């Protein structure tokens, strides 16, 4: 017994004598209340934080979209000024991409991925919290412009140089809207890269016993690919932003035309990030759909290895097609042809996924519950977005479509019809897991149909508007262009879509408070996240770290209940003999460090460099405190009914 208390690896005691810790290294232990959220390292709580804030920004971005559609409802409208309209579409895109879809995906990564691989947390729990707080800092910096005289950023979400230079984007002294945009995106990049590094390590290194890579749930695979795309693509935009920041703050000429700068370089750097970013937005959605379809078809995913492999191919090819965003910049014939063909090639692995989803439905027993409705809607809408994407890949056709409403229609089909539909499906699907309550089937389906109809009414006419010559990002248009009907219908559709989203959220909030309580596994699901002992899952996720014997691990568990129960009992004993369930300690340092970055970032964007230095020092102190605080942790012990014993174990 004495030997069992020693770690097999370090030969040290599991619970060394308590250290004398100064007040600033005292670990917070609150499990409820505001402190528990501010200091949390629990991947589930962090996932919920991501979820709440991304949904908030989703509504903000949606509101901006509605204002845009009001302005465009009729020709020659005066509802918004040109300037405000430009701010609106810039912030709508930036918000939806960086503050809504990406963090909502991150919410799913955080909450589900550790559960899917049978882990108790991510590899670096404090870093995970840090990624969230840094995200929030970036979100604040991006949006703070709304409350200043300068207004919000107004350079478009891809901020093409030299429109972002001081000469063209600083309308008066103290106009820092573009600086806020630059700084906000840099800080969001830090958050994304840090979060992704953590996920990569977690997925590769913290899988439950028996969970080989080719048994990973598809969502976890897509998390892994997305994380790799993020760490490899974000540096390009970060450097582009750094160079732009140098131009704006220190007078360099990277993108200054008068100093010999090449604005085309900005476009290359931006789209080397920007195209993988498209897959960063869609791969998590594909992962979620690949979980939902098998569950409600009651059979495994069709062609699992090919779905995984096609995800990898999409990620890889995604780095080789960036210039198709630049077909009209005069690349020359060879480059245009090469990127045209590469773009067509990427349609193959994408199509393969659609074939496999249909293959999954084929021969199954399809239960059209609400999440399944959204998932099926996803396939339809994503397919249409894919087809208009193929049309863009033909560069000569794209010469007419580029920067027209046809493109606007295309990317809303893949981003709303694709990403958002899948994320909305995921919220319904996992709501019982996360909150232990079930959304009403009637209201869920009603919201689906209203959203589905509103979405198509809004965006389908835009195909015609674009082909009829309407350029995007225009605050006004004339009544003689043949665009009136399409725009009016689109604006009506936008409000239907808005009503659908409203119903969706009201239903979700109602269910959170008063929905029907349910037991675990309401959908008869297949993957490991549903194997948690109760819904919502306990802080330690699993009473016993699960052992995986097959691809759909939970399905196997349900069909081999007795064998698994015996195995778990054995492992529970072993774990207790190893000192109990090890949990990471909470910490103040992630949020403190992020506050330093927020302060420094805001000061830098306002060209107040002493403040920026103070912010940098605060960040540095935060990091040092973090390092010397140590990872920390404590042990939980369970009684025989699986409840955590009141004594919260020994911390160290």
């Amino acid at each position, binding site marked *: 017994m004495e030997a069992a208390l020693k770690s097999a690896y370090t030969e040290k005691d599991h619970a060394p*004598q308590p250290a004398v810790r*100064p007040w600033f290294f005292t670990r917070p232990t609150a499990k409820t209340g505001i402190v528990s959220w501010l200091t949390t390292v629990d991947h589930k709580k962090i996932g919920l934080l991501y979820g709440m804030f991304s949904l908030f920004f989703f509504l903000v971005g949606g509101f901006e979209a509605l204002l845009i559609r009001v302005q465009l409802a009729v020709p020659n409208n005066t509802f918004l000024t040109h300037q405000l309209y430009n701010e609106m579409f810039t912030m709508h895109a930036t918000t939806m991409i960086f503050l809504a879809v990406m963090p909502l995906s991150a919410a799913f990564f955080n909450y589900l991925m550790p559960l899917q691989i049978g*882990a108790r947390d991510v590899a670096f729990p404090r870093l995970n919290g840090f990624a969230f707080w840094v995200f929030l800092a970036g979100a604040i910096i991006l949006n703070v412009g709304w409350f200043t005289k300068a207004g919000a950023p107004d350079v478009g979400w891809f901020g093409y140089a030299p429109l972002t230079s001081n000469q063209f984007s600083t309308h008066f002294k103290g106009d820092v809207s573009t600086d806020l945009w630059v700084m906000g995106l840099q800080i969001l990049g830090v958050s994304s890269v840090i979060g992704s590094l953590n996920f990569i*390590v977690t997925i*590769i290194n913290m899988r439950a*016993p*028996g969970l080989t890579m080719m048994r990973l749930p598809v969502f976890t695979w897509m998390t892994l690919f997305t994380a790799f795309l993020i*760490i490899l693509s974000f540096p390009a935009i970060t450097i582009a932003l750094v160079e732009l920041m140098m131009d704006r703050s220190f007078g*360099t000429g990277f993108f200054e035309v008068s100093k010999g700068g090449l604005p085309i370089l900005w476009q290359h750097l931006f789209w080397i990030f920007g195209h993988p970013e498209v897959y960063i937005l869609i791969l998590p959605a594909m992962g979620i759909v690949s979980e939902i379809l098998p569950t409600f078809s009651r059979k495994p995913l069709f062609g699992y290895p090919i779905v995984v492999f096609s995800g990898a191919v999409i990620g890889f090819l995604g780095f080789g097609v960036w210039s198709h965003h630049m077909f009209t910049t005069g690349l020359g014939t060879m480059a245009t042809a090469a990127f045209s063909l590469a773009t067509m090639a990427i349609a193959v692995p994408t199509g393969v996924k659609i074939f496999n989803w249909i293959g999954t439905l084929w021969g199954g027993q399809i239960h059209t519950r609400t999440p399944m409705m959204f998932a099926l809607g996803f396939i339809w809408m994503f397919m249409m977005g894919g087809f208009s994407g193929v049309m863009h890949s033909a560069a000569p056709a794209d010469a007419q479509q580029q920067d027209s409403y046809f493109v606007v229609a295309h990317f809303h089909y893949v981003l709303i019809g694709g990403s958002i539909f899948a994320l909305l499906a995921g919220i319904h699907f996992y709501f019982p897991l996360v909150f232990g309550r079930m959304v009403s089937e009637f209201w869920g389906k009603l919201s689906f149909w209203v959203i589905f109809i509103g979405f198509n009414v809004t965006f389908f006419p835009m195909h015609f508007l674009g082909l009829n010559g309407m350029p995007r990002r225009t605050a006004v248009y004339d009544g003689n262009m043949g665009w009136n009907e399409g725009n009016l219908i689109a604006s009506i559709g936008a409000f239907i879509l808005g009503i659908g989203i409203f119903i969706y959220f009201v239903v979700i909030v109602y269910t959170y408070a008063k929905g029907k309580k349910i037991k675990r596994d309401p959908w008869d699901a297949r993957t490991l996240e549903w194997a948690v002992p109760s819904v919502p899952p306990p802080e330690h996720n699993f009473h016993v770290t699960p052992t995986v014997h097959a691809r759909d691990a939970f399905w196997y568990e349900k069909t081999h209940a007795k064998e698994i129960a015996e195995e778990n009992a054995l492992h529970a004993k072993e774990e207790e003999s190893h000192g109990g369930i090890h949990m990471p300690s909470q910490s103040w340092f992630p949020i403190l460090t992020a506050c330093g970055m927020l302060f420094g970032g805001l000061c830098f964007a306002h060209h107040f460099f002493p403040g920026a230095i103070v912010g940098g020092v605060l960040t540095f102190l935060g990091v040092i405190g973090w390092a010397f605080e140590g990872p920390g*942790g404590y042990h939980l012990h369970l009684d025989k009914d699986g409840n955590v014993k009141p004594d919260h174990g020994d911390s160290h």
Partner: protein
Amino acid sequence: MSAHAGTIDHHHDHTTTTGIPNKKLFMWAFLASDCMFFAALISTHVIYRLHPTPDSPDVLKIFSIELTSFSTFILLMSSLLMALAVGASQKGKVEATRKMILGTIFFGLIFLGCQVYEFNHFVHLGLTLKSSMFGATFYTLTGTHGVHVAIGVVWLVLTYIRTFKPADASKSWIARAVTQFVAFSVATVAFMVVMLAVTHAGAEHGYNLGALVKGVEHSLVATIVFGVSSAILVALSRSSWAVDFGEANAIDVEGMGLYWHFVDIVWIIIFTVVYLLEYL
């Protein structure tokens, strides 16, 4: 049953699915990301060398290839010391680890000193961030690398300080650690000031002992500050107590080593692309 049958206590035992420690994997993934940072910066520099702006200076008249070659060599040697530090830590030799880390810090600082001198010198020659596109790309690229080295040095210093953590957890060592860190920072800055003064004196009066004396004279305060802070460092460089630093911490040293080697390799590329190719 799979090969991994049996429970795994991830956070505690450092046993992982792949057997690679988390921190090491994290560092590899981070370096992959960092590669892309430098790739973007180096591309920018190369693109603007291929499309030079009319204000481009005559680079060969600005560069001092001897100095940069010397600092490159120094950085390479620091990698060797870093490798020795990792080796020592893996064998649990605390004292040797400390020495090697100090050596790495010292060489890293020489490299940084050379860079500070070089930047200073180039600015005197009229090459600034604003002066030309070459200035912008050059300073941004080499500056970013310099920041990487500086972060590496700070990290080494913190690790060095960490090796003094007493094994007796009830013993407080915070005041000691803070003093050491402050002394390090002050000594570094003071040393750089002295060295700059000495080199400038050397440039004026020729590189001889007289110049050294002149340089020290010109930066007397800095010299004294440097002396005092170094003395503090030396005084604090011994630990008579058992320390909480051993093989278990080797992974931290190793992660730091990966970073340090990466920064070196990046410098080899930068040195080749930014400096050597100009001489073709």
